[in-house]
Each structure stands twice: as structure tokens, then as C-alpha cells.
């Protein structure tokens, strides 16, 4: 009899504990359980291999690619992107810069890759490369340069784009991402106008999306934000996407990066 009473007592206790645990706590627990064993590792490994592999019409590797800190440097470059590149005369993010390198060094057609749907052909290689390069800056602090006039102009443009309401639903980026402690459904929404939200948000992509089992680079992340915002399709590597990258990354200055992350 005693034994049964004790067992009942325990069951009762755990039921109360469950009731008191909020959905937010449970979701946090769920996310914690996924941290060990992030399939982004698979893409990271693929990207690392692609960097040294001789490929493309010129049968060359990417080892001489300049991502902002000189040819061949991949450690720490990601926390300083997007930045201005004198050779192209453009502010570029990681993915658009990888296209430049794939074209210049390997002879691929950058425009062709930019037009390729995400996850297909060379696009999936760009994502894998971006995943690996971001991982090589994991834990470092965002430190985007704002010395060049083009970089400063892009920040200003990014800010305007961030607040631009439009589409069928009148949404702007700011509709969801300009307040603290808000969520959409059960997902926390980072406040991207300042830290910690800007660093946490911007510094998490590329990320593995468990909902569809895909690796998403920053370009696809933005692309899908715009899709949900009911805007037209942002062209891969376009100045609008890069300006937003500058706006988010500069707002996130000093935030430690966690990319490649694992996300819902």
C-alpha cells in the first residue's frame, strides 16, 4: 500500500512540474536537445573539401580566393562581411563574393549560379562553402567595417529597406524585428535594430533548418523573409540583400557568432 502511495505521489509531483513548465521552457529544452549533432556539420565538411578541390572550366581550387583579408584567408573573414571590395567596386556579402571567386578563379558563370534555385547544382556548393567559412569564424565577434563610403551608404540603404512597408500585407522587416521579446507563433523574434538581437540573428546564418532538412545561407534566409513578407523575389546577391546584411551586421557589432546554427 505504502509503495503505491509513494508512486502516486511521484506521478502527482511530475504532473505539477509539467504544468508549471511553460511552453517557452519546453521549446528551449527541445532546442538544447538538438545542439549536439547539428547536421550543418555535414555541409561544413563538404564546404571544406570544395575549397581545395580543383573544379570548374579552369580546373582550379578556391585557395587564392580573397574574402576580404587577402587571398586564401578564410579564418575570421566572415565576421567582417559584407564589406567593400576594390576589385569589383562593390560591397559584397560572403555568398556573392564566393561567386566572384568561382568565376574569376574557376571559370564558372557567376550569373548562371545566381540564377540557379537554392539547393541545386553550384548553388548548393556555394551554401556548403559559406557554411564552412562561417564556421571558421565561429565564436568570433561581428566586426563589419564601416570605413569605406560605399559601406556606409549600404548601411543607410539597408536601414531604409528594413523599415520599408509594402506587399499585400504591408509588412516591413521591422514589423517583426524591431521590438524586444516578441515572438511569431512560438519562435522568438530577434530585435535586429540593436544587440543582442542583431548579433544573435545575423550571426546565426548559415543555419540548418530542421523543418525542411535544408542548409540555409544568409541569402536564402533573407529570401524567405521576403517571401513571407509577400514581397517580390529578391535577386541572389542583389544590392538590397547586401545592404540589409550590412545593416544587420553593423547593428550586431560585438555580438559573438554561432553560425552555422541549427534552427526550427
Amino acid at each position, binding site marked *: 500500500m505504502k509503495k503505491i502511495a509513494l508512486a502516486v505521489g511521484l506521478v502527482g509531483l511530475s504532473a505539477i512540474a509539467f504544468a508549471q513548465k511553460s511552453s517557452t521552457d519546453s*521549446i528551449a529544452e527541445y532546442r538544447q536537445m538538438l545542439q549536439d549533432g547539428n547536421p550543418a556539420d555535414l555541409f561544413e565538411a563538404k564546404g571544406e573539401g570544395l575549397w581545395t578541390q580543383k573544379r570548374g572550366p579552369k580546373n582550379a581550387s578556391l585557395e587564392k580566393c580573397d574574402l576580404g583579408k587577402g587571398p586564401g584567408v578564410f579564418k575570421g573573414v566572415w565576421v567582417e562581411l559584407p564589406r567593400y571590395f576594390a576589385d569589383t567596386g562593390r560591397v559584397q556579402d560572403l555568398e556573392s563574393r564566393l561567386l566572384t571567386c568561382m568565376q574569376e578563379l574557376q571559370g564558372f558563370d557567376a550569373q548562371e549560379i545566381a540564377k540557379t534555385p537554392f539547393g541545386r547544382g553550384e548553388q548548393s556548393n556555394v551554401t556548403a562553402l559559406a557554411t564552412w567559412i562561417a564556421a571558421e569564424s565561429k565564436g568570433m565577434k561581428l566586426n563589419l567595417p564601416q570605413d569605406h563610403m560605399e559601406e556606409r551608404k549600404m548601411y543607410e540603404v539597408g536601414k531604409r529597406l528594413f523599415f520599408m512597408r509594402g506587399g499585400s500585407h504591408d509588412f516591413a522587416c521591422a514589423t517583426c524585428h524591431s521590438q524586444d521579446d516578441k515572438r511569431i507563433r512560438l519562435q522568438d523574434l530577434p530585435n535586429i535594430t540593436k544587440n543582442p538581437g542583431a548579433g544573435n540573428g545575423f550571426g546565426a546564418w548559415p543555419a540548418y533548418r530542421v*523543418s525542411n532538412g535544408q542548409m540555409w545561407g544568409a541569402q536564402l534566409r533573407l529570401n524567405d523573409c521576403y517571401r513571407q513578407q509577400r514581397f517580390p523575389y529578391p535577386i541572389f546577391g542583389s544590392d538590397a540583400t547586401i545592404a540589409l546584411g550590412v545593416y544587420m551586421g553593423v547593428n550586431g557589432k560585438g555580438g559573438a557568432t554561432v553560425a552555422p546554427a541549427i534552427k*526550427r
Partner: protein
Amino acid sequence: MQTRRETLKHSAAVASLLAATGLFPQYAQAFDKAAFDAKTINEAIKAMGGAVPVESKDVTITGPDIAENGAVVPFGASTSLPNVKRVLLLVEKNPSALVAMFNVSPEVDVNFATRAKMGQSSDVYAVAITNDGKAFFAKKEVKVTLGGCGG
């Protein structure tokens, strides 16, 4: 609080899930009987004889209370019971309940973790099958939520 009747229901549920996998002919009969309505569950369980799956505190299932996404739900199944031959992970409301089956050898701990897809909120079972064909289980309820913008 779990009543005896509910416990029996769970046993029947596990039996039917095992039977549905087609891997355990000894449960096939139990499955048929368990398919009767609630009034006859007690009799059905009796008819299972030694094959009644028993809920056991020596079997552990770990997993989230709420999954942010049903596409990836992390689970761990372990047991301290001796002579375990197999460990199964079953999601009751999936189109086919059996997610994974691990065949144990003396060289490994009876402790496995993997991730499952869940179409909807469901009870999830870890079942340990011993060398003599007995089944012991642990159960966990997992709520699957709809996340994100949903578009």
C-alpha cells in the same frame, strides 16, 4: 494519475504497435484482440499471456515535451534491464509506428539516441525486448507545434 485501466490500454497500444511492425509474430494475435473495443481490452490483455508488454521504470525514454517542429524530434531509449535483445522506438500516431529498432550486443550500452519525424502530437514508446521475448516499455507524450510564419 494513471489508473490500472489506462495502464492496460497502453499495454494494448504497445502490443498493437509491435504487431503492426510485422516483426513480432507473437504479438499478431494480441493485436487482433486488442483491436476490440475498450470493454474487451482486459480480456485481450489476459489472452496475451506472457506477451503482455509491461510498462517498466527500468526502461527510459527521453524526448522533449513540446517539439518546435515535427520533422526532427530527438529521442533517447535506454534500459537497465538485463538480457535485452532489441530496443524499439515507436510513435503511435505515425502512419507506420516503428521508427527504429536497435539490435543489442554485449559490446554496447542499451542506450540509443536518434531523431524522428512526427506528423502530429502523439505518445511515443521505447520498448525493450528481452532474449526470452518479453517486452517492457516506457511512454512519453510529445506535443508537436506549428511553428514559424506557417506560410
